[in-house]
């Protein structure tokens, strides 16, 4: 037996370690909330109190939407070493709402990276300044300017104006996106909270 262990101890060690690594990774992956169970907000910059915004959203959002959310994340980031184009393309797949300070916005940011806001969705944001871009002589709405008195701006300590966009990939836009279930409207409700346009 002693000789057996002398030659084969590493095999026993391997059969103890491998299942731990495998099952830990598998369970983490399996229990990861689905896209429609998480709401993610990104601020492109570094002047936001993300914890405060996250706390406010976690507190207020559950009473505004019937959608069951397991995770609400508010993050801030800058393109850094990656190109602006790569950065925004990648983020739009991951986040539901993306907020930009004016200094981080390009002239055609709406038409380059986002979809125009459908009229039905626009109606849910009364008295809000809309960010528009002119495409072939037509003015199209792409985002919302955040008012200085809004919830979001109370947690922002920069000087720029900020604009909120909906990710075209979000599945939490309710009737505002063909891909999403009409009941999954957490992103719309979160935007209303951040813009303070809720009735």
């Amino acid at each position, binding site marked *: 037996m002693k*000789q*057996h262990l002398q*030659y*084969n101890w590493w*095999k*026993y060690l*391997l*059969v*103890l370690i*491998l*299942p*731990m690594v*495998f*099952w*830990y990774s*598998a*369970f983490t992956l*399996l*229990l990861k909330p689905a896209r429609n169970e998480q709401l993610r907000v990104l601020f492109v910059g570094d002047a936001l109190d993300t914890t405060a915004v996250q706390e406010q959203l976690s507190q207020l959002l559950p009473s505004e939407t019937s959608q069951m959310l397991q995770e609400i994340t508010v993050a801030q980031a800058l393109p850094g070493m990656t190109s602006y184009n790569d950065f925004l393309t990648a983020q739009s797949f991951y986040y539901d709402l993306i907020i930009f300070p004016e200094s981080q916005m390009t002239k055609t940011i709406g038409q380059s990276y986002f979809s125009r806001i459908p009229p039905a969705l626009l109606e849910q944001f009364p008295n809000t300044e809309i960010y528009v871009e002119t495409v072939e002589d037509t003015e199209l709405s792409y985002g919302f300017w955040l008012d200085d008195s809004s919830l979001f701006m109370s947690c922002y300590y920069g000087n720029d104006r900020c604009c909120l966009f909906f990710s075209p990939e979000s599945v939490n836009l309710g009737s505002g996106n063909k891909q999403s279930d009409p009941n999954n409207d957490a992103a719309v409700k979160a935007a209303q909270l951040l813009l303070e346009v809720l009735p």
Partner: protein
Amino acid sequence: MKQNILGTSPTKYHRRLYRHIALCAVLAALTLLLNILLTLMLTPENRTLLLWLNVGSDALCGCFVVYRFTRHISRQQKLYRLSVGRGVPCLGTVTHISERTVRHMDLDCLDVTVGERRLFLPAQTISLEIGKPYHFLTTSGVITEAEA
């Protein structure tokens, strides 16, 4: 008397080997089924319990398979392959048998001196007596058959 390293006929030996392999395969399949069953029951609340149940069952099954394979399959497979291979005949008197085993072809072997030749005898297989002449069959320097 003729002795071979298998201690029985190759057919019987092969059947016994197959039984050991089948036992390992069945146990692995049952563990896999248990893993699937436990994973289907996974919820955020019972995550830790199921994680350790899966890890525990896999580790136990793994240890059993490793033990079986190294003690009852791997060595026996090598002996079987050596014994069914075409052996080289050798005649001589055993002059020395080592007390300690040495590793040869990944097998624990006794060092046997036959005349001026050095041969290897897999441990706990054939019993030889010093000073007696034998007809040997060898494969790659390993004694597979001995006849006094």
